[in-house]
């Protein structure tokens, strides 16, 4: 605690833009110094495999004059969980939303660079098709105002142009709920309004809904920030289980959470990707000064 305050007093966080070419004096010393990040032991096993599915390549996103994301490059792999961390307004959510072209819905976002899904530029993929392959779960649980069953069935129904029979839908709905670990809790009241579920259940329902589309990549935007610790733990387990079926990208404010569940972590600051590294290394021996400051709680 004392060292933390001292550090804060001595090195006020610079506000200027990070320039990778600019030799930062502390950069060389970085690997030796250990951070104050004392996390619980990582309990998850190392990934069995990892296949590169998506490719973020020199992506910049502008909102009118403001540059929210500045030339970021990242791989997204199936078999792993990728966490995007950083202080508020660092562009991580914008980057996440651009992965299934949701940024296009909000006015004047302009994207340069390219994002590829299985080596195809996503701008060549029709948006609704892309969003079925790359689905998203939001910060605030947002089940639709319908029954639990209809919430999942909605995704399946609106994908086909023909009306689907309930018999056809049922097994698919059940399996989606099972994958999200919600089936046992709601199997007796699938007809109940989804908004009557608890917050954690609602969020798992949203995950189930996102899984029902049989996506290849699952985007999670701070999925636990509105939830209590118990529900958070359940969802974290779920995310780790899912990483082999889909590539998982999670944006989180919670460093502990990133450390617990992510295999790779990308730290963003003011639109820049400061560091991309395996979770253990990024948290324990960060390569960049700013990363160390952030993960040790000096700012953010």
């Amino acid at each position, binding site marked *: 605690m004392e060292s933390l305050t001292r550090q804060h007093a001595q090195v006020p966080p610079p506000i200027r833009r990070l320039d990778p070419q600019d030799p930062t004096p502390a950069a060389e010393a970085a690997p030796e110094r250990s951070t104050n990040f004392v996390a619980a032991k990582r309990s998850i096993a190392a990934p069995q495999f990892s296949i590169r599915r998506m490719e973020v390549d020199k992506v910049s996103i502008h909102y009118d004059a403001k540059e929210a994301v500045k030339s970021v490059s990242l791989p997204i792999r199936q078999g792993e969980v990728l966490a995007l961390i950083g202080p508020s307004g660092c562009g991580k959510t914008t980057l996440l939303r651009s992965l*299934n072209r*949701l940024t296009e*819905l909000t006015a004047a976002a302009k994207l340069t660079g390219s994002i590829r899904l299985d080596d195809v530029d996503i701008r060549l993929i029709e*948006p*609704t*098709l*892309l*969003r*079925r*392959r790359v*689905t*998203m779960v*939001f910060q*605030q649980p*947002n089940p*639709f*105002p*319908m*029954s639990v069953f209809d919430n999942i069935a*909605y*995704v399946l129904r*609106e*994908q086909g142009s023909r009306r689907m029979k309930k018999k056809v839908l049922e097994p698919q709905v059940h399996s989606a709920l099972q994958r999200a670990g919600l089936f046992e809790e709601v199997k007796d009241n699938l007809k109940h*309004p*989804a*908004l*009557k579920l608890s917050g954690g259940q609602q969020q798992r329902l*949203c995950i189930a*809904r*996102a899984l029902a*589309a049989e996506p290849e990549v699952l985007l999670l935007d701070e999925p636990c920030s509105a939830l209590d610790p118990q529900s958070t733990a359940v969802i974290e387990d779920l995310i780790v289980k899912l990483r082999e079926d889909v590539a998982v990208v999670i944006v989180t404010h919670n460093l502990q959470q990133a450390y617990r569940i992510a295999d790779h972590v990308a730290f963003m600051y003011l639109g820049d990707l400061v560091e991309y590294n395996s979770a253990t290394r990024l948290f324990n021996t960060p390569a960049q000064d700013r990363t160390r400051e952030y993960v040790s709680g000096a700012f953010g």
Partner: protein
Amino acid sequence: MEEEFQSQYGPRWSDQRVGRLLGALVCAVVALLLALIVVVFIQGWPSFAHNGLAWFGPGGNVDEQLNVISQSAETGAGYVYTFHAWPLIWSTILIAGGSVILSLGAALFISVFLVEFAPTWMARILAPVVRFLASVPSVIYGLLGVLVLVPFIGNHLISESQKASVAGVISLTGYSLMAAVVVLTIMVAPLMVSIFTDALSSVKPGWLEGSLALGVNRWRTIWKIGVRAARPAIVAGTVLACARAIGESVMLAMLSGSTAFAPNPIDGLIFVFEPSRPLAPTIVKSSDQLSSPPAKATLFAIAAFLLFSAAIFSLTGWAARRSMNKYLAR
């Protein structure tokens, strides 16, 4: 002395006092509504009492009945109350029902368009247009209907053979069900649009975004999620529109044909060209007979029936909203 009193016991306009004052005003308004209901039913009671359930049924020519009723006050042979309102009720159902159904459809499409799909320039024109259409006085709609729409229907839409086919029963001039429904739709739809757009644009963005993020296109998202979530407001708007449609009097008095005739769908398509007269215009048309007590009772009975229907609409709407809120509220 008074200043001292104030500083010790608080300001002269204390909250309690103001609260009571406003409360009294509120009670007065509530009492006024109750008085209205009681007065209308009491005044209309003789008409109901003399006719019983037959009041609502068919039988005879309503216009003649009304004449006999209002003249009976002068003959001295006792008041006559015989009145069978079915043609008027039927006309109200056809005109109000037809226009509410048409405007419900139109209003849904227009509000979806306005909220989600219209480009900025279009929305900037359409929104004031809707507000304008809602604020045009009904008598102007009536005038334009009489001078433009009615002659058009009479001269171009109704063929001579159609006129001849019903010549013995009724003359088709253009004052018709169709004219009434078309103009009433233009009057009622903007009302619904303004309620629907409010509701649609306040649907939680998370729901719409959630649906889009699952790869459902914008059209289906707004209909399946937006319109669905806005259903309570849609019901409320429809109820209001129904109330407005059955209560519209002046425009319909001008356009509907003002003959107490009951258009019969069995006649085929020609029935949309047949004239009729709903309940509310009957009150306006016969209001100069108010000095005759039996006529007054009859008109108040019609008003009571309108009040009762309006109440039924609100109750239905309330029940419908309640059942929908099950899914919306936490």
